[in-house]
């Protein structure tokens, strides 16, 4: 059975492993709904076999971009290339792009098996061959036992796995997933997320995954495309997006961030009075050294210590398992620090503490930016 599984994986995505998929390029794609600009000239390119996550708040244009790529959304201008071929004018049914939708999209009148067979039936593949292939796809997503079940007889997670098998059965060049986990409960969501990632790695198909969940994006992506107001704010690896956000929006949207007022010692070091020195990298928004600046620091780039003379007051402590999230205040400003759970005993609500730098600043910008 393992050999058939490998064979299926080799067929899907036109290859047998990562790097064998096709490249995808969106070039200056624009789409407006009346006066609202959903895509303001979006350009990005995914490498063959890459797992790209499109991340952003509701209404940022990520789903529109995905639908434009699928051919389900007309675009006002720009071009879409799949495997180097211009598919801008091709209808969705001719694009060889598999898609899993946010809402359950299995055909209610068909069993799991028939759903997976559907795309093959459309292509005129013989009944024997499509049945064999559908069985293999269901086996790949671990639902061979559910082959004869109708969608209403399956859980949400199972339905989405069948939808994934259905999308992959047609051997698409690109796989698109439009918030496929959003309707599922936390545990199923986490399991299915892992399964999708593993499948994508094994199959090697170029994949676009839309989500507004930053944790999902950070854990799944080879690269994350952070979008806002129809624009691409940053396109980089999870580490780059988290540790070196290109814009204010990315810094504040992905993860928690603390904003301190401080000064720039030189082109590499920022100083926050009472906290310490933070190494930083230059960006377009960085003011000249010597002047004052706003220094953006992740919660885990600081450590906290009990200090009866400290300037910060502990106002909230949230136990997160291996970590503790501590909220402190100085005047009207709040800050968040993430500590290991072993440090839980050094803080208590209402106690005074001081903060100490232990990592880098993610962004340094001119004052009064926000």
């Amino acid at each position, binding site marked *: 059975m393992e050999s058939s599984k490998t064979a299926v994986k080799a067929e899907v995505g036109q290859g047998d492993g990562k790097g064998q998929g096709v490249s995808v390029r969106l070039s200056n794609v624009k789409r407006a709904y009346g006066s609202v600009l959903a895509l303001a000239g979006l350009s990005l390119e995914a490498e063959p076999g890459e797992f790209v996550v499109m991340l952003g708040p509701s209404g940022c244009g990520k789903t529109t971009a995905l639908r434009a790529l*699928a*051919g*389900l959304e007309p675009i006002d201008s720009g071009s879409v290339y799949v495997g180097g071929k211009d598919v801008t004018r091709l*209808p*969705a*049914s*001719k694009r*060889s*792009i*598999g*898609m899993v*939708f946010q*809402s*359950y*999209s*299995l*055909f*209610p*009148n068909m069993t799991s098996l028939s759903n997976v067979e*559907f*795309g093959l*039936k*459309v*292509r005129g593949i013989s009944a024997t061959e499509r049945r064999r292939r559908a069985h293999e796809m269901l086996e790949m997503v671990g639902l061979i036992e559910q082959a004869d079940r109708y969608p*209403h007889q399956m859980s949400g997670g199972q339905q989405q796995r069948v*939808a994934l098998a*259905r*999308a992959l059965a*047609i051997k698409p060049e690109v796989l*698109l997933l439009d918030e496929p986990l959003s309707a599922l409960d936390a545990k199923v969501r986490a399991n299915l997320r892992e399964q999708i990632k593993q499948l994508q790695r094994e199959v090697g198909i170029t994949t676009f995954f839309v989500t507004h969940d930053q944790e999902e994006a950070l854990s799944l992506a080879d690269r994350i495309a952070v979008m806002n107001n129809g624009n691409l704010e940053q396109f980089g690896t999870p580490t780059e997006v988290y540790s070196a956000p290109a814009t204010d929006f990315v810094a504040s949207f992905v993860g928690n961030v603390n904003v301190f007022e401080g000064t720039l010692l030189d082109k590499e070091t920022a100083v926050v009075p009472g906290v310490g020195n933070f190494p930083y990298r230059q960006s377009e928004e960085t003011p000249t050294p010597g002047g004052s600046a706003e220094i953006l620091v992740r919660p885990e780039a600081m450590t906290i210590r009990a200090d009866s003379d400290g300037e910060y007051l502990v106002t909230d402590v949230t136990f997160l398992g291996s970590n503790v999230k501590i909220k402190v205040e100085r005047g009207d400003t709040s800050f968040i620090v993430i500590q290991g759970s072993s440090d839980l005993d050094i803080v208590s609500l209402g106690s005074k503490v001081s903060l100490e730098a232990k990592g880098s600043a993610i962004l340094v910008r001119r004052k009064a930016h926000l």
Partner: protein
Amino acid sequence: MASVIGAPAPSTGGGGGNVLKVGKVFRSVVLGVVGLFFLVPIVSSARFSFTGTTRGISFSAYSKLLSDPQFWSTLFLSAKIGLGTVLLTLLLLIPTTVWVHWKAPKIRRVMEALSLLPLVIPSVVITLGVITSFGSLPNIIMGTPVILALEYVILALPYTYRTLDSAVQALDIKTLVEAGQSLGASLRKILWWVLLPNLRSGVLGVVVLAFAFCLGEFAVASLLSFTTFAVYLVQIGQTQASEAIAFSLIALLFTWIPLSVVTVVFSRRSGRRKKGGALLAAAQLTSEVVDLAE
């Protein structure tokens, strides 16, 4: 807490029980009255059709009717018109309703209002309008039952459109169509393989409603001088009471048999959500049959 467990039930509980009992009795009374309202005329009609003005039981009204060639020719004519109406209605409504839900959900209210117009405009006005406006149409339409079928498509809209609209609304049309497209299917294949099977209950409801409407419609057919099943029923009723009642009961069978078949099919194949179409069809058909019997 222990004292609460052992405490007597609050007095409001007894009051609630009484309210429930009263509600149950009220429901039974309402159901009984409604049942009698429908059953008494049917049973009385059946009795009269077998006895007439004599005391003994006789099947003469039925045998006379069934051996009347005009009975069969009018039934055949109405069935032909009904079939044409059903086909035209399905051809017009299925793509329209799907399109509205898929591409233009904002105009659903407008469509609903339009579909209700035949209820607001009297049939006589519509018929006169048709005669005046389309009098110049070729005889193949104007002088034949085709014009009746065309008119019935419009007149039955309040029932047919809403039935189909409810069925389409129960589906996530946009997602299903787009899923089909992403799998490489053309719109025709998506309609045939995905949408129609899922709209079965609504489509069957439309078939039954449109057909029943055609079988029972009198005013327009009479104004356009067609002797349809309903028109012939009225003609017979003017001179032969027993035959007219027997006629009504046969018409009742002609409409109730397909309705029963559809209802059985619905309840076997569809979930509770889809039964709405069947129930609506049943309610409408009952009204049609009562009209016909009158």
